[in-house]
């Protein structure tokens, strides 16, 4: 009797609730993300403008990457595409390098127990603030402060102080505008990076720092020999997420333009895609923008798989490795090698 009852209890399964609980997520994800992704693939092998229903195979990719297949139009589109890829890379590097340098320095100082910097909490709050402000408002604000004409606040100040004789072209100049976008991006994101790195540093084993202090290591030595090597996984993670974020950079490059005229030196890949499928309405270039999206997708997969590899459950992976090694050893023993390490 008892055993039958026990068997009965054991057979109560809650598995169906698991499916029920995760169902909404997967339904919505398939409908609003997976199908649009497949749809993007489909659109990328069809034509552009008025010919969106015409199947052209890999013509769009050919035009974007090699500038062939569509006559003069394809050379022009290839030039633009490589220009926007280059712009994205330049603007990303120009904002990431100073951003990570400042964030890392601040994170190390703020977590150093020996240094007594008053008002740490206040500084953290202020430095994170630009990150929550609407990007559209930030772009509009910087457009007005750094206006090209002598009426812009910064130009006005510089002219009165006699630093410059001519107003600086902060919006239309090639490197001036790129520099401004780099600055705005770094301005918006350095606080966020700093706090992430700080939490990474605080997660490190404090006894290592104590030991180094007792041994008389200088701050520079501690940073180079302890903090930096231990922080490497978090730094790599920050680097890759920032790279993926950089590929999608849209708001500031799109809006940091005068009127409706867009500066070709600050146009990023995301802006290029948006212009072709959205601003060309009612005759959108679904082909070009779809193909560019797919190229972006492939780059993201490459970068993402590195983070995914890092984010995976390390213990589980280690156990798997151990099991594999044990199996290998067993096999070797069976082969008659006497259990020697190979």
């Amino acid at each position, binding site marked *: 009797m008892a055993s039958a009852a026990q068997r009965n209890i054991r057979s109560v399964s809650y598995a169906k609730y698991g499916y029920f609980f995760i169902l909404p997520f997967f339904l919505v994800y398939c409908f609003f993300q997976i199908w649009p992704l497949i749809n993007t693939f489909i659109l990328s092998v069809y034509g552009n403008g008025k010919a969106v229903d015409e199947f052209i195979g890999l013509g769009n990719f050919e035009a974007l990457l090699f500038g062939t297949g569509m006559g003069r139009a394809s050379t022009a589109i290839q030039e633009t595409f490589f220009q926007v890829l280059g712009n994205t890379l330049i603007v990303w590097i120009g904002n990431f390098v100073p951003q990570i340098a400042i964030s890392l320095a601040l994170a190390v100082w703020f977590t150093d127990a020996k240094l007594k910097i008053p008002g740490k909490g206040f500084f953290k709050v202020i430095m994170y603030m630009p990150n929550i402000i609407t990007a559209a408002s930030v772009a509009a604000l910087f457009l007005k402060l750094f206006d090209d004409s002598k009426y812009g606040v910064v130009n006005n100040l510089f002219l009165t102080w006699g630093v410059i004789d001519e107003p600086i072209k902060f919006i239309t100049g090639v490197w001036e505008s790129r520099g401004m976008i780099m600055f705005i991006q770094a301005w918006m994101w350095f606080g966020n990076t700093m706090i992430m790195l700080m*939490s990474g540093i605080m997660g490190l084993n404090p006894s290592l720092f104590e030991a180094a202090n007792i041994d008389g290591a200088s701050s520079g030595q501690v940073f180079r020999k302890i903090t930096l090597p231990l922080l490497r996984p978090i730094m790599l993670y920050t680097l890759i997420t920032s790279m993926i974020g950089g590929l999608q950079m849209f708001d500031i490059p799109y809006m940091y333009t005068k009127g409706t005229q867009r500066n070709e030196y600050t146009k990023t890949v995301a802006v290029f895609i948006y212009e072709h499928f959205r601003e060309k309405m009612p005759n959108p270039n679904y082909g070009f923008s779809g193909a560019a999206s797919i190229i972006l997708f492939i780059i993201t997969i490459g970068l993402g798989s590195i983070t995914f590899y890092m984010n995976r459950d390390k213990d589980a992976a280690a156990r798997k490795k151990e099991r594999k090694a044990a199996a290998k050893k067993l096999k070797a023993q069976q082969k008659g090698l006497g259990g020697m390490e190979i």
Partner: protein
Amino acid sequence: MSNEKQVKDNYTAKLRVKSGILFAVCVLLTVICLLPIYMLIINATRAHVDIQTQVSFLPGSSLIDNINELSTNPNFKTFDALTGFKNSLIIAGCSTFLSVFFSSLTAYGLYVYDFKIKGAAYTFILAVMMVPMQVTSVGFLQFMIKLGLNDSYIPLIVPTIAAPAIVFFMRQYLQSSLSLSIIEAARIDGCGEFRTFISIAIPMMKPAIAVQAIFAFVANWNNFYQPSMILISRKAEQLTIPMMINALKSNDKIADYGVIYYAIALSILPLIIAYICLSKFIIAGVALGGVKE
């Protein structure tokens, strides 16, 4: 003896000097962070002519004029702050509720139950966490136009049910704070599965929910890309605050700087106030999100 003391004094003095220098650096960075916002507020209170002739770090007296100008001048018709706040609030509020609730549900399902595709489902969620919106947007917009859902808030709100990053965070949190024996206890007491989730898991997840809700709300409030993609007709009564700011800055007819500064200040005011109140939560939340190890 005195030698030792001297060494120690030297050491403290050195640290003090270093702390002082670093403090100065921090003050400089704080000024860089605040100066644009300070200039925004100052210029919002000044008249167009004054702004163009002379830079000032002190407030002017034209705030009332700028407020009146913004609400009466037909050139600023597209910038209707109240409508913008209402629209942004509807989109951000609904999206936040849906994304946080369904992410908690998904994370709970993945953590509590054992079923065949559990591992595969979680791996899938981790894998798609990095897929950027821009990659799918071409197919997304074309699909939505086919369904006749452009110019509607549905494509802006409903897709937020599937938020992989929030699911990841929630599952991490559950793993560290919810013990399965509590669920067992609820079952023995005859509590249904869904009710267990609502009345036991949700209250225990409150801190994580608060953090994620704040971030989801800010992200949706600030979102410019999706609304400007979906709302093709740009109907005045549908515009969100970021779209209004973009329209304002793109309009060549508008040249009154004082009013523009005032409009920008108005658009960021709610965020700044909310940030000042919630900054402790937000900073802690960023720090939590940073530890992915």
